[in-house]
């Protein structure tokens, strides 16, 4: 169990460093990084505190304390995946509305242009 918790700590630190690096390079926006940072810190704290891990395990009725880490990690992944889908849906809606607006504006612009061209032709 000790080795598993040690590995979990290392992976948590890797996750936190990854998120901070991505933030510094502007590869992820702050609002989308917060949950990942909280997840990394929570996993690190749980893997470093056998007391807390044991307490949560007994509260959940789990015989093997490290299972809590798997549950927490799994829950975080599901929530983050769902949140990603929500964000993608919003982006897609915005993208569709924007594409439609561009198309309609371009249509009007072409009409104005052709009107201008025909007027110019008449004035020659």
């Amino acid at each position: 169990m000790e080795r598993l918790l040690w590995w979990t700590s290392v992976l948590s630190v890797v996750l936190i460093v990854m998120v901070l690096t991505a933030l510094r390079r502007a590869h992820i926006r702050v609002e989308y990084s917060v949950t990942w940072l909280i997840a990394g810190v929570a996993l690190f704290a749980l893997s470093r505190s056998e007391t807390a891990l044991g307490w949560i395990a007994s509260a959940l009725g789990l015989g093997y304390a490290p299972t809590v880490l798997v549950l927490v990690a799994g829950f975080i992944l599901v929530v983050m995946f769902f949140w990603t889908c929500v964000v993608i849906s919003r982006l897609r809606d915005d993208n569709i509305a924007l594409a439609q607006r561009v198309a309609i504006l371009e249509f009007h612009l072409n009409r104005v242009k052709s009107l201008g061209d025909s007027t110019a032709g008449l004035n020659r």
Partner: protein
Amino acid sequence: MADNRELIIIIPAFNEEAAIVGVIQGIQQAMPGVPILVLDDSSKDGTVALARAAGAEVVTLPHHLGLGGLVQTGYKLAFSLGYQYVIRVDGDGQHDPEDIPTIYQQLRTSGAEMVIGCRTNTEDGWKTSIVRRMGILFFRAVLRPILGRPVHDPTSGFVGVNRAALQVFAGSFPLEYPEIEALVVLQRRKFRFEEVPVRMHPRRTGRSSITAYKSLYYIAHVLLGVFVNILKYEGRTAGQKPRK
């Protein structure tokens, strides 16, 4: 585009260079003087140039959106230009332009917000794959209790709408596989629809976007869309009474 803001024909098209000119010419013969607007879903072929050369106006999307987003673009534009009626004719040549006057007449006289060109009511029947026919039968059964009346051809894309429906669709239109969900969207507003028999021709080119492989996804997607639209039920809002 003429300034007669009564009726406009919209033609959603994606890579339809083999069929688009025939469709436009057919409409020009059936409905002389009526503006024709081709909605191009970012085609890679000569659809846009051919449509313009044939005398239609073209709206080109900056990138591919799919049928719902494409048709809604036409509805938004038609609504903003002040048109009273919009009839959608597919760009693949399956719809017979000779039926447009029938749909238009029904739109003007029935007071229904939407008129559907029903492909099953024709005398010689409409030939389609068994899978698709089963899908239509399935959705007819699903929609009957929701709409409170039978609908014979819920997947038909040959439809006309009046300005009240146009206003609704300009604001909210299903983006994928829109035909069935659009009926439920109208039902939420207690709008009415009518069906008129129309003829169908074999597709002049290309293949249907709904392949056998996609059929299950189609059914699940549309069922979910219908369910979500029922949950959104909001009744008729003020100022949207059906015209008698």
